[in-house]
């Protein structure tokens, strides 16, 4: 959450584009990451992320602070956009196809190490999980959102999120085990 976020949102609601620009700068990387890990291709993730923020900007008057942060509202829009994306387009490319040079910092040397291979394995395993398991893992462990924020974003109770998180981790470990065995 940005300092003075409520004021920024209020200014954005009044139509100040600079205020929304600040919100965009802060949340765009997070939303993009969430989307790219869900859809697996950077081009599609860019399109979806663009539409998420465009929709957010056009409908910012409808945003009401109901006790959860602005980020949850954005994740909710992103989540729905990804669902729409899957609904309208059946052809998917595996997350294995993500080129680390495109999605990561160009100067990220770690991407070329063994850890990068592990990362690719995790991303690939993640892509095979159920949608809701993917969402919870990305939001909780990559984006480090709180249980409350995730619950608000996916419109479930906090108890349901804790349960989903437990099952998602268990499932991810299982899938990773299968993939590691397959690689050997």
């Amino acid at each position, binding site marked *: 959450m940005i300092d003075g976020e409520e004021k920024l949102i209020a200014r954005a609601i009044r139509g100040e*584009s600079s205020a929304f620009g600040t919100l965009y*700068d802060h949340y765009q990387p997070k939303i*993009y*990451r969430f989307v790219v890990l869900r859809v697996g291709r950077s081009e599609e993730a860019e399109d979806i*992320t663009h539409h998420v923020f465009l929709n957010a900007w056009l409908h910012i008057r409808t945003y009401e602070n109901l006790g959860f942060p602005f980020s949850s509202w954005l994740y909710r829009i992103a989540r729905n956009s990804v669902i729409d994306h899957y609904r309208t387009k059946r052809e998917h490319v595996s997350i294995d196809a993500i080129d680390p040079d495109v999605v990561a*910092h160009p100067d990220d040397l770690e991407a070329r190490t063994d*850890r990068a291979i592990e990362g690719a394995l995790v991303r690939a395993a993640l892509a095979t999980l159920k949608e809701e398991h993917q969402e919870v893992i990305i939001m909780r*462990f990559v984006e480090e959102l709180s249980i409350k924020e995730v619950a608000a974003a996916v419109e479930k109770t906090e108890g349901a999120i804790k349960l989903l998180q437990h099952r998602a*981790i268990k499932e991810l470990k299982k899938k990773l085990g299968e993939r590691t065995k397959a690689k050997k």
Partner: protein
Amino acid sequence: MDFHSIFKQLQKIEADPGYVRRSRAIILAQGETSLLRVGLTRIFKEVLQSGSVLALASVVLVVVLGGVSAWRVLKPGLAALDPAGLTAEAQAIDIQLELAGVDYTELVSPESTLADPASVVKKVLRKEGEAPAPSSTEAVSVDEALRLLAE
């Protein structure tokens, strides 16, 4: 496998900076136009709404005022068509006049009683002591009072 470090590594995923710049500029530009359009549409709707309210209020005002005026104009005409009503009204007017007369004779000041023939008679008779003052103000006319004064 250390999940924590892998997830940390995933946090380094970023979009192409060129895309971010373009997307940001397009979103803010489109948003401004659309918000302006939304703002104008909203203003137009509000103006229409308040205009409708004013028009409705004007119609109600005209109907109410017109109704009252029409009632005032039509009321005598309607009453004239009813003979029984007319009679009752006439009787009511007579009673009111009589009562007004009574009030007048009772409330007039002593100084102004000279104008009243009955008072004059009273005074004259009281002075002469010949006859008691009349018990009713209705019995003496102006002519009689003058005749009495002349005697």
